[in-house]
C-alpha cells in the first residue's frame, strides 16, 4: 500500500483501484498534498506520452477520470489543510459558427488533469455566452477555440465585447485552434496563444503567475 501503487493505478486508468487506494491512503493518514504532487508528475508523464502518441486519447481520458476520482476523495482533506484550490477556473468553448471540437476537447482534458476547473460550453458558442458564463462561474480564464478563417473574428469579438462592457481586466483570454497564431493573438489583444493542448496548462499557469506578480508589485508600489 503506497503512493506509488496509487500512481500506477491512475497511470493505467484503473478507476476502481485508484478510488480504493486513495481511500486507504486517507484512512492511513497519508498527507494528501504529497499524493497530489505525485499525481501531478504522473499526469505530466501521461500528457507527454500522449503528445508523442505512445498512448491514445481513450487511455489518457481513463487516467484523467481515475485521477478525478482520487481528487474527489482527497478534496475534503485538502480543504481542511487550506489547499486544494483549483489552479484556475476556465470557461472553454468553440466559437460561434464553428463545429470543430476535437482540439478543444483535448485541451479540456489536459487542463482538468492539471487541476484546473473547466466549464465546457461546447461548440457554436455565442461570444456573449462566453462572457455570461465566465461571470457566473467567477472564471479566471476564457478559452476560445476556432478552426476556421471564417470564425476567427469571433475570438476578437469576445475581447471587443469584454472591453465594451468594462470587463477586459477581469479575465485572461486564451486562444487556440489550427489557424490561430501568435500574430493573430497580438492583433486582437488576446492574453495568450497556445499552439497545442500539451503546452496549454504550463503556459496558462505562467500567465496567471506573472499576472499575480504584477498585481502584487503594483500593490507594493502603492
Amino acid at each position, binding site marked *: 500500500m503506497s503512493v506509488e501503487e496509487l500512481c500506477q493505478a491512475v497511470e493505467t486508468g484503473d478507476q476502481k483501484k485508484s478510488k480504493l487506494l486513495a481511500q486507504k491512503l486517507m484512512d492511513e493518514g497519508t498527507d494528501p498534498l504529497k499524493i497530489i504532487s505525485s499525481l501531478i508528475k504522473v499526469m505530466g508523464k501521461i500528457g507527454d506520452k500522449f*503528445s508523442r502518441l505512445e498512448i491514445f*486519447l481513450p487511455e489518457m481520458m481513463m487516467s484523467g477520470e481515475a485521477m478525478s476520482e482520487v481528487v474527489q476523495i482527497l478534496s475534503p482533506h485538502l480543504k481542511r489543510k487550506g489547499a486544494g484550490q483549483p489552479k484556475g477556473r476556465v470557461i472553454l468553448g468553440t466559437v460561434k459558427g464553428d463545429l470543430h471540437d476535437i482540439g478543444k476537447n483535448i485541451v479540456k482534458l489536459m487542463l482538468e488533469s492539471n487541476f484546473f476547473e473547466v466549464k465546457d460550453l461546447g*461548440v457554436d458558442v455565442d461570444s456573449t455566452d462566453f462572457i455570461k458564463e465566465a461571470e457566473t462561474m467567477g472564471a479566471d480564464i476564457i478559452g476560445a477555440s476556432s478552426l476556421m*478563417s*471564417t470564425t476567427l473574428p469571433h475570438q476578437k469579438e469576445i475581447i471587443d465585447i469584454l472591453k465594451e462592457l468594462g470587463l477586459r481586466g477581469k479575465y485572461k483570454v486564451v486562444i487556440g485552434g489550427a489557424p490561430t497564431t501568435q500574430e493573430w493573438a497580438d492583433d486582437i489583444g488576446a492574453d495568450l496563444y497556445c499552439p497545442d493542448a500539451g503546452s496549454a496548462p504550463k503556459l496558462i499557469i505562467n500567465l496567471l503567475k506573472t499576472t499575480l506578480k504584477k498585481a502584487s508589485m503594483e500593490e507594493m508600489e502603492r
Partner: protein
Amino acid sequence: MSNPYRLWEIQQRSNTGPFCDENDFLPKIFVPKLKEVIKKYEIKYDPKNPVPADDDLADRLWQAGWELFREVGLYNTDTHRIIKVSDEEIKEALYTASDRYWVGSGKDAVLWKHRQVEDTEPPFCIFSPDCTCSEELHYSMCLAFLKEPLLDGFCAPILEDSMGLKILSASPFEINGSTQHIYNLRLAAKQVGRPGVFLVAVGTAEHDSGQIAVSNNEWGVRTSDSRIIGTLTEFKTADTLFNRVVHCHQYGCYVGNLTGPIYGGWCGGSEGVAVVLVAYSLNGLCIYGANYNQHFPFHLNWVSNTTRELLWPIAVAGQAMARNSKLLYTSNGFANAGPMTEMLFYETACHALVSTVTSWHLWEMASARNKFRNRATPLEARIGMEVGHAVARQGMTREQANEITLKLLDKYESRAADAPMGVEYQECYDVATALPTQEHFDMYRRVKDELAEMGIEFPY
C-alpha cells in the same frame, strides 16, 4: 437512381432514439465497443506491410465495422439522442444502393462506378486543394485545376473574403462568398470548355444557409453536382448537418458523407481507424443517404495520412468495402509537406498508389497539414491521379503496391514531424495563365521519372 434510405424514418430517430449525455457517448459507448470488435474480429495492424493482401482480414474488418455501426449508432448533439439502424435496415440499404452514378452534365457527364481490389478501371479523380484562399487567387486556382486533363470532378478552394470583406460563417457575408465561389467556378468551367464538369461545391458555405443559397440549376450548384456533408468526429452529427441532408435530397443533387477518423484520438490506433472507416461508410449510406463516402482519416498531431499507420487502415478498409459492398468511396489525401517540395510529390504518389490498388477512388490533395491559406496546387494532385491511372491500367497487385509503398515511405516517412511547408500557389504558378512555373514543373517531372523507375508504368 439514388434513393436516400428511408429519409424520414431515420430523421425521426433524432427525436425518438435513446437519450445519452454527450460526455458519456464516446468514452462509455463508442470506445468500449470499438475495443471489443477489434479483439473479437482479430484486427491487427502490421507496420511492415502497409498494403496487406489478406482477404480474410478484409472480410473480418467489414464485420467489425458493421457491428460497431449497428451497436453504437450516430449521436445527434442537438437532440442528445442516438440514431440506431438495425441489421435488416443495413442490408436493405446496401441492397438498394446503386453501384454507379452519372455525374456532371452534357458532354462532361461521367459514369462513376464501384471499383474492385486491384481493379484495372482507373479511379474516379476528384481534384481538390482542400484549402482556403485569398479572393484574388480564387479564380486562377479554379482555372488551374479545371485545366487538369485527368479531372473527373472538382472541389474548389474556400474563399476567405469576398468583395474585400472577411467572410464570417453563418452570416450574410458567407452567402455572398458562396455566390462568388460558384460564379467563379461556373465561369472557369466554361472558359476551359467543360461547362458541365462535376463539381463538389461550395466549400465556402460552412453553414447550411450558405449551401442552400447556391442551389440553382442555371447559375449555381446543379442537381448533377454534389455536396459533402460532414459527420462529426467520431460518430456524431447535428441538426445543421441534417438540414443539408434534407435540402440536398429534396433539391436532387448528389451527397457525399465527409468523415475524418483520427489516429491517436477516440479511434485509438490503426486498427480502430480501419474499423471506423468501414462503419462510417454504412453511416453515410443509411443515415445521410449518401451516394458516396469521402474519407480523410488523419494523424492527430500531423493532420496527415501518408505515413504507414494511416496507409494501413486505408488499404484494409478499401478491401473490406470492395469485397463486401458495391459502395463508392473516395480516399482523401492529406500530406505533411507543402507545394513545390519533392516530399509532397512522393507523399501524394504513395497515397494514390495505396488507395487505387485497394479499390478507392481518388480525392487529392490537401497539403501542408491542411492548415495554410493558398498552400496547395493542381500539380501534386496531378501526380497522384497519374499514379492512380497507371497502377490501375497495369493491373498492379497488392504485393507489388506494398513493395513500392515501402520504397516511397523510405523517402519521406522520417520527415513527417518536421516536413517542409513549401510555397504558396502564386509562388509556383503563373496566376494569369494558371499554369505551373518551369521550376515547379521540372520538379514534378523529375519525381515522375523516378516513380517510373520504381515500376509505375505511366502511359505518357
